[in-house]
């Protein structure tokens, strides 16, 4: 197939401007059995994240007597993409994404509080349309916060890509397939620390700088949506309480 024009008259194929995010919706607490959970709809991505623990780290040799360990598992459902049926479970890509996701949370969780324990984070992509690792991290951050496990910050993630010579925020699958670069980044919004950074394609140093600025700006929106999702269940309780008196 020929490479399509990704930007026509300043608008992207789905009508967004280069710096515009797709619509994001997060719900906290959909998985009752989990210590914390969250469901995110990011564009047409649909992802569930659940947290179990802190619990005894098993098998024993994985445990650390000084602090908690984080285990992370990112997987895609075999029916999650429009293409042919996938294989359930982990491939090499999923193993790598699980690892970099784990490292994002190792940075923010107060691991010292739970020596010998493990905190398990499960990210399940039910429907995919590009940017699932960033959406998965954003969703898992809400699941962790909802579980009450102490964290220094609530990280978010989003990617910047390049269509022709224009930087575009938050690429969907089609854009990702034909773009000239992809740079997913996770940030601790309070301190602006970068905890995930990957990139492939072609970006000038100036474009890396501009991309980071776009990601920083998008963080205001994403962080607000995360916090609203965390607050909503409590507001519901509050409303119920107010109505009852």
């Amino acid at each position: 197939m020929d490479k399509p024009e990704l930007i026509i008259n300043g608008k992207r194929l789905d009508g967004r401007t280069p710096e515009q995010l797709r619509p994001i919706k997060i719900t906290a607490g959909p998985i009752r059995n989990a210590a914390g959970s969250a469901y995110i709809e990011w564009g047409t991505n649909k992802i569930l994240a659940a947290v179990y623990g802190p619990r005894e780290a098993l098998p024993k040799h994985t445990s650390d007597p000084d602090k908690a360990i984080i285990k992370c598992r990112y997987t895609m459902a075999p029916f999650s993409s429009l293409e042919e049926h996938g294989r359930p479970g982990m491939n090499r890509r999923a193993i790598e994404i699980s690892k970099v996701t784990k490292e994002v949370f190792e940075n923010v969780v107060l691991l010292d509080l739970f020596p010998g324990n493990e905190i398990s984070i499960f990210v399940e992509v039910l429907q995919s349309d590009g940017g699932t690792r960033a959406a998965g991290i954003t969703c898992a951050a809400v699941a962790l916060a909802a579980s009450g496990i102490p964290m220094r910050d609530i990280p978010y993630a989003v990617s910047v890509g390049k269509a022709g010579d224009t930087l575009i925020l938050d690429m969907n699958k089609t854009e990702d397939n034909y773009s000239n670069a992809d740079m997913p980044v996770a940030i601790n919004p309070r301190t602006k620390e970068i905890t995930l950074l990957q990139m492939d394609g072609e970006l000038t140093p100036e474009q890396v700088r501009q991309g980071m600025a776009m990601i920083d700006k998008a963080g205001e929106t994403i962080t607000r949506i995360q916090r609203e999702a965390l607050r909503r269940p409590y507001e519901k309780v509050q409303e119920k309480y107010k109505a009852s008196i």
Partner: protein
Amino acid sequence: MNISTITEQYVRERLTKGVREGGRGMFEFRNMTLEIGKMINAEGSAEINLGNTKVLVGVKLDVGEPMRDKPDEGSIMTGCELLPLAHHSYDAGPPSAESVELARVIDRGIRAANIIDLKKLFIEEGKSWNVFIDVYVLNYDGNLFDAGTTAAVAALSNARMPRYEDSKVIREGNLGKLEIANMATSCTFAKVAGTIVLDTDGNEEDFSEARLTVANDEKAVRAMQKGLGGSFTPKEVDKLVETAFEKSKDLRRIIKSSKVD
């Protein structure tokens, strides 16, 4: 005394008095809701909430080779994933015997009831449509057999039929529906504290002695599976088959009324 002993006593005492969680009857399902077609990249999907049990079924159709022993038919493959996010006891790793049994029992009901006419999935010499049914357990609170079967049948009943043109699979645009020839449902009973109940929740399931799944359509029993170490008498089986027929009317109604056209 540990927690599971306390829970066991609680479940046993209540069942002996004929009381179940939420005040439901011995042969009564928990509240059931079905959401169809939520996953748009799958050809078909259904999410079921049965009490606190939550299961998502995705259906995909691919062009592949027919099975060697059935060269003029398509095929069905059913897989179950007890996702580690669904319960603290579920591990990542190769499929457990529990998940394989679940997949095979759901598969058997669908296959035996001829819900899909596999002959119609034949395309040409060496090519057929293969139907993949993936049962994704998202939150476990008992009775995955009936939740899985109900959602799988609902997902199949509302699936798109992709087209195969010039050696390409066309999955978008104006598509017809996957042709459905029948409808099947299942009812799973368990003996807990000597009492037989329908649709066990997680606590009841933990202390079940014997389990019986009956899958049927309007005319006949299509699949059965007895599980666990306990037993049923022929008389009990007789009664449960009859109860399954009675209960299946409600299940068929729920699946039919959740159809989206």
